[in-house]
């Protein structure tokens, strides 16, 4: 019977073509949008993790409360021993120290007079120690537009847009003006070893990256750091694991009322990223629901039209002795076949689009000119195994629901009128 139904579906284009097109488009859009959402949110989360939050972050309670002000006067002290204990307690994670600092970059001319100035957002990382993995983690080498990574103390890399704005090039000297963790004024000269484009507008506009030992010296923060970031060695954020770690770590300091006691936060509890992750999941769910609903409505109507067109056929089948239940079941079986064909086509198209957007991406840098959010300039889709069924199942279900609703008419058909109806 399935072969018989399949022949009907393949030969009768009006029975199959429109539903297959509708299902294909719906499944394709579901997959493409889900992949795009997943990719875009994933990129954003990943970028935040790499540049700001880590998979977990340790800081002082006071620093946490004033985090947006980059309050280095509230930074962690004794970080080497703290980092060592973190390495022992949580060996599956890599622990790195970072300092964020704000200040002014001054560009001197050949006479030492200021020829340009701009506000800078500084980040100090373990640049000179290759085993820290920081340069790789932040894609610094691959993101260099000109020059090279700092190889010695006193060198800095600077955002490419920032460098262009200040008329700087590799080899030029800049002077940093700011304040130490104790509140006194500090200034330090750096030689630009390279310019960089991070792919996050907020950083490209004003970032300066220096080695952490330079920053510690410059800011009077010996054995101090604003933050210690932990990254899973598998480089995958596991919210449950991060939550357990934070709980365990924080329990150690639960009885300590010192505002400088360290506190650990998982990624999801920072920068509203938890809300973003929940939002991404919710949006994906809404997309899938909307597409099932919309497709079901369209396919219901298509099924009703098809039912009208096949009114005679169903009448003949009833007269020949096919029970109503069997006709209805066969209609559902047809829906499964059509839904499956449409879903396969839609899945292939959706995956192709997703893969293209994953490789090429969509450049949104134009929208981020004034953004202060840490967002990637190019949003990419992410092809994941779940995309193979995220559209397929709704595609088949929508077709089945549509046909189930439209097929109810079969049960209302009066066999006593068949002769009259089939005379036409």
């Amino acid at each position, binding site marked *: *019977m399935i072969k*018989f139904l399949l*022949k*009907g579906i393949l*030969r*009768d284009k009006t*029975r199959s073509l429109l539903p297959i097109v509708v299902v294909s488009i719906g499944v394709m859009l579901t997959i493409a949008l889900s992949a795009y959402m997943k990719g875009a949110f994933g990129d954003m989360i990943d970028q935040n993790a790499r540049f700001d939050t880590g998979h977990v972050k340790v800081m002082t309670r006071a620093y946490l409360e004033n985090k947006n002000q980059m309050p280095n006067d509230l930074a962690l002290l004794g970080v080497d021993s703290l980092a060592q204990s973190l390495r022992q307690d949580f060996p599956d994670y890599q622990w790195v120290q970072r300092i964020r600092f704000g200040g002014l970059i001054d560009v001197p001319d050949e006479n030492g007079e200021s020829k340009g100035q701009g506000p800078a957002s500084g980040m100090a990382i373990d640049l000179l120690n290759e085993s820290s993995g920081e340069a790789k983690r932040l894609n610094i080498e691959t993101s260099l537009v000109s020059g090279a990574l700092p190889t010695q103390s006193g060198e800095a890399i600077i955002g490419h847009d920032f460098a262009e704005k200040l008329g700087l090039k590799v080899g030029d000297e800049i002077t940093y003006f700011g304040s130490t963790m104790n509140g006194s004024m500090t200034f330090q000269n750096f030689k630009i070893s390279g310019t960089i484009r991070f792919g996050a507008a907020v950083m490209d506009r004003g970032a300066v990256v220096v080695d952490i030992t330079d920053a510690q010296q410059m800011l009077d923060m010996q054995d101090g750091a604003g933050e210690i970031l932990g990254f899973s060695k598998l480089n995958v954020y596991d919210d449950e694991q991060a939550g357990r770690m934070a709980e365990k770590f924080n329990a150690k300091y639960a009885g300590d009322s010192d505002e400088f006691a360290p506190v650990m936060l998982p990624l999801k509890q920072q920068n509203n990223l938890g809300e973003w992750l929940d939002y991404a999941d919710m949006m994906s769910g809404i997309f899938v629901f909307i597409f099932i609903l919309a497709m079901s409505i369209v396919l219901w109507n298509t099924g009703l039209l098809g039912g009208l067109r096949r009114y*005679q*056929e169903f*009448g*003949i*089948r*009833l*007269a*020949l*002795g*096919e*029970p*109503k*239940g*069997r006709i209805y079941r066969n209609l559902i079986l047809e829906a499964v076949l059509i839904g499956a064909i449409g879903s396969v086509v839609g899945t292939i198209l959706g995956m192709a689009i997703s893969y293209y957007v994953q490789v090429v991406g969509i450049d949104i840098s134009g929208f981020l000119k004034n953004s202060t959010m840490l967002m990637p300039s190019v949003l990419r889709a992410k092809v994941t195994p779940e995309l193979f069924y995220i559209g397929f199942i709704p595609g088949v279900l929508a077709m089945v629901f549509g046909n189930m609703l439209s097929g109810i008419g079969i049960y209302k058909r009066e*066999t*006593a009128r*068949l*002769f*009259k109806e*089939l*005379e*036409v």
Partner: protein
Amino acid sequence: MTSETIISIENVFKRYPVGDGEFTALKDINLQFKRSEFAGLVGPSGSGKTTLLNIIGSLDSPTEGRAMVLGKNISELSHRESAWLRNKHIGFIFQVYNLLPVYTVFENVEFALLLQNIPADERKKAVMKALEWVGLADMAGKKPDKLSGGEGQRVAIARAMVKKPEIVIADEPSANLDAANTHAILKTMKKLNEELGTTFLFSTHDEKVMGYLERIVHLRDGYVEQDEIISPKSMTT
């Protein structure tokens, strides 16, 4: 050839609600048909021919009285049981051929057997035999839109006959055919009636069809006006 009664209509009434009242389509019908009869219900429009065929074909049930078909009381059959009766024992031939347009001649005839879950090789043999009965074996692969009117009706006959039913109900089978085709299909049906012992029941007001009938039941306004035996075969008891 046996002469058992396979259709027994006893004091059958059929009423339909019309507005606040009702319309009586059949009034106290009493008829019996024996195996291998070649009989027809004749009468003007509204005389009750189709209503009676509906009841005999288990598409409808009487409002009052008893209609027994192949030992089954039509009034007592569930939808599934009446579908099963049609599927196994009753063939239908319609005024228009009502072939499924997307399927070939072979597949249209095969459909009746698909409903009975008969294995593919048996189906193939039975379909080709049925097409040979109606002289269309060489057209098995054609689609219905490539057939003439007469050929289409012969496919419909093959579809009705392929499952070797005990009863074939033909509702105005010649209505859309010219004289030559009418004679051709009636000869085919008569031959099958004689060879297979199938009971044929027609509804018609076509004189050409009446010429082939062995028994004519005249209906008027829901009554049996006359039950006319034309040839001795149906008289056999």
